[in-house]
């Protein structure tokens, strides 16, 4: 009886913005949305971008689940051409089951975020420090995986963690992935040197469905975090073989980003991005200067200006996003 009373008291949590609403141990609900306004030389556009709801919880002490539906872009208004578009179709962003066996071995099955680097793991506007995503984050590997991920720690101190992931099927929702593929395998290692510095690497292979490319990739990431500074960098190299034409090419992309917290609520950000694709003989470089204001952490208001190597692509972006 006392346990029942204890359990009930544990579930009676008050709602707090950014933390979701805990109905009980088996159901926790939340969501997020973001809006942005983009100014370019000849175009102004408003977007209600991500609109998402999520639910998760524990089924047993060993098993837990996660479910997320998302529509993006939900609404777009182009002021220069006076056009608007609404997209209310929700897609499966994440649907997976977790099995927790030990510190060394855990299993995740279903559609999930690909466990590579930093940016890909916190991809939504409200958690990012800039409104925009670097080219690296959506050009170099599939952001989502519909398959199995084995993960855990390889040492007693929980400083070296691994992910070994495999996909041998189509994506659960092919309309909603950056690179359509039916084969994806990879290994990720991350090492926490101390509370201020961590770094990692990933390598693997995926096969694209639309272009019949076999892509072998290697990725590196490092992060240095001593308040008020946060400096992080990620780079990836793709070696590409086309199975139809036997052509070979490569992609190289990455970024270095620095953030300085003026106070807990105000921050300045700058980022340098590089992207090269030998197949199309294109090279892009982008410098970004931004400002972030968070009246509370789950509410993000950001402004940034992008300077592109091709000056016609220069733009400014304002965004407002909330996690609830």
């Amino acid at each position, binding site marked *: 009886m006392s*346990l029942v009373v204890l359990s009930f*008291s544990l579930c009676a949590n008050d709602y707090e913005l*950014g933390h979701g609403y*805990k109905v009980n141990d088996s159901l926790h609900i939340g969501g*997020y949305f973001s809006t942005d306004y983009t100014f370019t030389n000849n175009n102004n556009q408003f977007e209600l971008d991500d609109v998402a709801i*999520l639910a998760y919880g524990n089924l047993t002490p060993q098993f837990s689940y996660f479910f997320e539906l998302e529509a993006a872009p939900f609404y777009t208004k182009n002021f220069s051409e006076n056009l608007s578009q609404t997209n209310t179709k929700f897609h499966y962003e994440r649907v997976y089951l977790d099995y927790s066996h030990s*510190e060394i071995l855990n299993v995740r099955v279903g559609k999930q975020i690909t466990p590579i680097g930093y940016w890909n793991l*916190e991809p*939504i506007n409200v958690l990012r420090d800039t409104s925009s995503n670097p080219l690296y984050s959506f050009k170099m590997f599939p952001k989502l995986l519909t398959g199995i991920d084995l993960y855990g720690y390889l040492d007693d101190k*929980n400083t070296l963690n691994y992910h070994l992931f495999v996909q041998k099927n189509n994506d659960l929702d092919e309309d909603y992935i950056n690179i359509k593929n039916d084969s994806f395998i990879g290994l990720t290692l991350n090492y926490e040197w101390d509370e201020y510095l961590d770094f990692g690497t990933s390598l693997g292979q995926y096969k694209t469905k639309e272009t019949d490319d076999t892509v072998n990739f290697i990725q590196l990431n490092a992060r240095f975090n001593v308040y008020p500074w946060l400096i992080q960098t990620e780079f990836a190299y793709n070696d590409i073989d086309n199975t139809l034409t036997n052509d070979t090419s490569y992609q190289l992309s990455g970024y270095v980003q620095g953030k300085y917290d003026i106070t807990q609520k105000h921050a300045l950000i700058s980022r340098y991005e590089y992207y090269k694709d030998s197949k199309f003989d294109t090279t892009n470089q982008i410098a970004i200067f931004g400002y972030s204001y968070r009246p509370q952490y789950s509410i993000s208001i950001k402004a940034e200006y992008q300077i592109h190597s091709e000056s016609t692509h220069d733009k400014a972006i304002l965004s407002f996003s909330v996690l609830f």
Partner: protein
Amino acid sequence: MLKTILIILILTSISVDASKYAIVVNKHSDITTLTAKQVKDIFLLKRHFIHDTRMIPVNTSSTNILRKTFEHEILKINRDRLNQYWIKKHFHGISPPLTQSSDTSMKLFIKKVHGSIGYLPISKIDKDLKVVYEF
């Protein structure tokens, strides 16, 4: 006189260094001692097991002075940064540890639930609990 001053100094230093609080588990647990990092990782839900025991961390209420001391001494994160941490975890489907409203309910929970771990003033620890770390 010098001897008296020395005794006072020694007693003062002892009282300053003495631990006031402890991390506790059920007395039947096979855990004997933990490091500060292990405790931190358990309460940040980065570590879920000690040996074969699945750990269930339990916090006191957020306004409790003991909770604030624990966050300062063990987690070494201020409340704003901790709030950021749990908001990011919410996006990944992880919610903060359970909360108990009083020392009495904390003790009762740890006594009843295998694998649970919490913190209490040393003066309130009884024979049904085992100390695995002091701070």
